């Protein structure tokens, strides 16, 4: 029976952030902040993803959690204890970087043993721990080999292993760890990470700009842009009810369609055309004025005749994606995309069709935030 490291409740940490961060000494405007003021909690044993484009602040947040960067304002707490001034070593976190960070001159076994040797653990126990972790990561065969000559995915496993080898690690943080891995090996590593999460029940925080990675790996995804965390939720929540236009745009392939609209009383006007809203929408939005309408291509209906909630559009192109067709149309100057299943009738370029925009999945935004 394989003995997996015993974790006590105090080892896994619940992480609370209440901070802001700026690289400038006297931040004045939003643009001066790398991380705008936020409060966030990562539960003990949860798998989280920080998702966003380059420069959104996700790596900064990760480094603040790990202790490599100290926030210019606010605190970081592990299990209620203020660790803001503590080093990464003192916080007991493990971090896996974008490219494999290993000690070239050592063997795989020596790499894994390194953190434990620095803590002066007795050699026998080190050997034991190294063996356990190597088995978990399927590295046992490579233990005596020099780390330098191995492939990138093995090296990343070694990096991860160095984090796991300490049995009191409080959280494991990943900074886009699959960036240099060959595509056909990525899924293997992802699978391994999920397996480790299930077995060890560690708190895992994963930074990425790839929504597929984020949505498959994490239970909760935090979408970030320009230093702000705009929404935290499960994959479903992010897809169905994006709280922010950025989330609508970033999640989904392609993202949400957005159209400017004006609401007066019970009428919705887009580009001079009036559309009939549903009763629920009217109730929520009657005083809204100028709004942005958001609807995913998956929920736009395509028909050749007018119907309530639909607008006329010129088809620009229809692409066969394999599992479905993607119809791109223009309503006035606005590009709107609609997904059509492979079996249905597909319009051709130049045709005039009616795109159904209003439905239960349609979202309305004001100043980029969700109204209804």
């Amino acid at each position, binding site marked *: 029976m394989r003995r997996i490291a015993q974790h006590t409740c105090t080892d896994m940490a619940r992480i609370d952030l209440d901070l802001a961060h700026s690289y400038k000494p006297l931040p004045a405007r939003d643009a001066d902040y790398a991380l705008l003021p936020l409060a966030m909690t990562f539960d003990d044993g949860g798998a989280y993803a920080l998702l966003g484009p380059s420069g959104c602040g996700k790596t900064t947040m990760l480094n603040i959690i790990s202790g*490599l960067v100290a926030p210019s304002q606010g605190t970081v707490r592990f299990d209620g204890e203020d660790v803001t001034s503590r080093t990464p070593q003192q916080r007991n976190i493990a*971090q896996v*970087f974008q*490219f494999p960070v290993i000690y*070239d*001159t*050592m063997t795989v076994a020596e790499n894994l043993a390194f953190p434990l040797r*620095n803590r002066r653990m007795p050699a026998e126990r080190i050997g034991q721990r190294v063996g356990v972790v190597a088995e978990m990561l399927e590295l046992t065969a490579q233990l005596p080999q020099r780390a330098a000559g191995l492939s990138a995915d093995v090296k990343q496993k070694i*990096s991860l292993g160095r984090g796991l080898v300490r049995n009191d690690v409080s959280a494991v943080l990943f900074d886009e760890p699959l960036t240099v891995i060959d595509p056909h090996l990525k899924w293997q590593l992802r699978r391994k990470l999920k397996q480790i999460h299930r077995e060890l029940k560690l708190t895992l925080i994963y930074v990425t700009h790839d929504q597929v990675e984020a949505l498959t790996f994490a239970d909760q995804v935090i979408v970030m842009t320009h230093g702000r965390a705009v929404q935290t939720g499960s994959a479903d929540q992010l897809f169905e009810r994006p709280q922010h236009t950025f989330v609508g745009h970033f999640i989904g392939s392609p993202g949400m369609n957005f159209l400017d609209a004006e609401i007066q009383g019970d009428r919705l006007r887009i580009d001079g055309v009036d559309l009939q809203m549903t009763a629920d929408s009217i109730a929520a939005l009657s005083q809204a004025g100028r709004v942005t309408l958001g609807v995913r291509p998956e929920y736009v209906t395509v028909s050749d005749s007018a119907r309530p909630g639909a607008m006329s559009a010129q088809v620009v192109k229809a692409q066969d994606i394999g599992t479905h067709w993607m119809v791109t149309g223009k309503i006035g100057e606005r590009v709107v995309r609609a997904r059509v299943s492979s079996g249905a009738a597909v319009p051709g370029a130049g045709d005039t069709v009616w795109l159904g925009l209003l439905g239960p999945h349609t979202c309305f935004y004001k100043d980029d935030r969700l109204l209804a």
Partner: protein
Amino acid sequence: MKPVNHKAWLLILPVVVCVAFSAILPLMTVVNYSVQDIISPERRVFVGTEWFKMVMRDGELHDALLRQITFSIAVLVVEVPLGIMLALSMPPSGWKASAVLVLLAMSLLIPWNVVGTIWQIFGRTDIGLFGAALARLGFDYNYTGSATDAWLTVLLMDVWHWTSLVALLCYAGLRAIPNAYYQAAQIDGASRFAVFRYIELPKLRGVLMIAVLLRFMDSFMIYTEPFVLTGGGPGNSTTFLSQYLTQKAVGQFDVGPAAAFSLIYFLIILLMCFILYNWMQRVGTSDASTPPNG
């Protein structure tokens, strides 16, 4: 992988022509001289390997060679560790880094004969700070009279002159190490020495090879500085190989033996260059897995 394109030779041509003109032609002349005895412009006798044999048996040459090798090894033993330590002590960025870079580069930009002159003055016990200080401390220091003092002064002068090069090369190498390695080491709880031993030193392998190669070669060819400082003396205690060759070629106009010795000198350096270059290539490929600074 780089595509194969033989038309690239057009791009290389200017360089090849320039360097061939400046290097191959002269070399051919030297080869020419080394196998002939030129008694007068009209009378040239082919003597084959005579000069070479004569040169190889020359006792003075053996002495000069030994002196040279000892000097070059001493140079490496002092300058390489010193340069590494300097690189580790230099600030990584900011105005202080620029200031230190400028100050260190200064000794590299001084014409070599001025280096000799500076130390000529600096080491004199009557008008030089160094010499006077040593005399005041009770040392019997005289670089023109004592062979040991002369030798040590030439070494000190070279250290002063060239350690900056090693330091700057190592500094460049250190800056190329991605920050993530230091962060990972911090997370792993590594001591400062462990960081040096397991991260910095291995990653400096490439630059160190360049530094060792450059310093060894250049010290093996050293001419101006010792010439200005001591003239090769006292006696011939600081007469290294280049000066020995120049004495033979220009001083005594023994063109034949000089040419022969030139070729031998060149071949020695070529051999060492070849060995070290291959070593560099091997080390270079193993570092290819390290990604560029992110």
